[in-house]
């Protein structure tokens, strides 16, 4: 199994329950494809760098999951068809899924989130 990461962007005008429904839908899809959900990160409503479908905001959702190679295609196909999803992007994180290890890695960047990256030492 491979480990993938998919970031997707939802319309900002979704109702609370609609939003929850979308999340469930894609999580369920991963399960049905015999995948393992490693982590789900809700970034919440964020400002976009440029208008997408005339919206200047959107909900970002980050998924980490493991599955057989076809799983990301299936997920992306569903996202393409779903009009609530405005954008999505998938990258492969690892070629082999080792239970436990991937979960740890997924947590890591969040913990050392703010190591103060000051851009001052330039001059």
């Amino acid at each position: 199994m491979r480990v993938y990461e998919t970031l997707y962007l939802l319309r900002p005008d979704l109702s609370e329950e609609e939003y929850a429904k979308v999340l469930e839908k894609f999580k369920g899809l991963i399960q049905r494809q015999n995948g393992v959900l490693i982590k789900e990160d809700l970034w919440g409503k964020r400002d976009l760098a440029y208008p997408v479908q005339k919206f200047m905001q959107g909900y970002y959702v980050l998924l980490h999951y493991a599955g057989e190679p076809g799983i990301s295609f299936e997920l992306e196909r569903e996202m393409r068809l779903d009009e609530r999803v405005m954008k999505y992007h998938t990258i492969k994180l690892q070629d082999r899924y080792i239970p436990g290890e991937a979960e740890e890695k997924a947590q890591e960047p969040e913990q050392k989130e703010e190591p103060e990256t000051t851009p001052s030492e330039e001059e």
Partner: protein
Amino acid sequence: MEELKIKRPYARRKFCRFCADKSLVIDYKRPEILRQFTTERGKIMPRRITGTCAKHQRQLANQVKIARIMALMPFTTAVLK
């Protein structure tokens, strides 16, 4: 030879900030870091200005492009304002 020496203004040696600081990750999900390496207009700054090494510049450019696709960073700011 003398003139050449005189002409040359003092310039501090540039270094690759990603090599120097391992905690500075190059990731499309961290646009606040990537933004330091783009102009206000959103263009990726060249290595000769930032001093980034070839390896990291390559990663940087790729990650900026992904961030642009996901609307985390602008392609350009010309449309706005």
